[in-house]
């Protein structure tokens, strides 16, 4: 996955976290996609999954706090998107444990994660930045 300058929303904390999130998800997907036999890379997969997962939780929390701070009108809707995604991850992790990290299941999870994250950061999160910028503009009318 490639981090792009245009993904930045102009809020330093969020931009740094998004970049770090891209790094961690890339690491995880890189491990999942590597050529090595599945059982030899399982411990690395579990490790990178956990490393990524922790960061997702932290980042969602911080991003929601920031939205609350600027009175972002889309907060509730955005929070629901985060919560739904977290719930999906929890369900996948439960299935991973139940199936002993079935390869096909982990591959499907990784593909979804890839597309979900890009759309979320490059699309949905951009609206937070747009709103924040509008708030900063002093209005001369009144």
């Amino acid at each position: 996955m490639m981090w792009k300058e245009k993904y930045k929303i102009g809020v330093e904390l969020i931009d740094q976290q998004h970049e770090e999130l891209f790094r961690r998800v890339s690491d995880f997907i890189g491990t999942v996609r590597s050529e090595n036999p599945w059982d030899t890379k399982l411990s690395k997969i579990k490790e990178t999954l956990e490393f990524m997962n922790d960061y997702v939780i932290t980042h969602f929390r911080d991003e929601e706090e920031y939205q609350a701070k600027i009175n972002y009108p889309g907060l509730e809707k955005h929070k629901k998107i985060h919560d739904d995604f977290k719930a999906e991850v929890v369900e996948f992790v439960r299935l991973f444990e139940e199936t002993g990290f079935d390869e096909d299941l982990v591959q499907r999870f990784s593909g979804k994660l890839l597309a979900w994250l890009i759309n979320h950061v490059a699309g949905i999160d951009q609206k937070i930045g747009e709103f924040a910028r509008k708030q900063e503009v002093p209005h001369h009318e009144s």
Partner: protein
Amino acid sequence: MKAEYVNSFYQAAQDVFKIMLDVGTQKDDVFTHEITDDGANITIKLKGDLTGTIVFSFPKETALEMVKIMSGMEMDKLDSFILSALSEIVNIICGNAATHLQKYNKSVDITPPEVVEKPSTEADKCELLPLKTDIGAVKLNIQLEENQE
């Protein structure tokens, strides 16, 4: 079927390909056709004010290129990883299309995307929306009916 319904899907696909892949999209004329399949076929169903089925057909080369752009990794076959990434793209496009449909006072829910070997819809004919993107063709088979109130 009303042109604005088909257009809602076109608009959504165009935006999503631009935002997620930096890929431009144009459309060819829409025509009524028997359902087509090609490479990876992903189906989503609509329920609510409009009911029906949308089938996205991605030729193999387009599918591999899309996932290569997102992941930065070489892709060589249509495996679970790729099909799942494409399913999520379809999910995002149809979710955004549902938002566009609200402008025409149509409220719809979408079902989770499903990868199918041989796509089918309720009717044997559907509207075919052929898209030409910078990285190859994508076909949208759209079959929708308005529910009478």
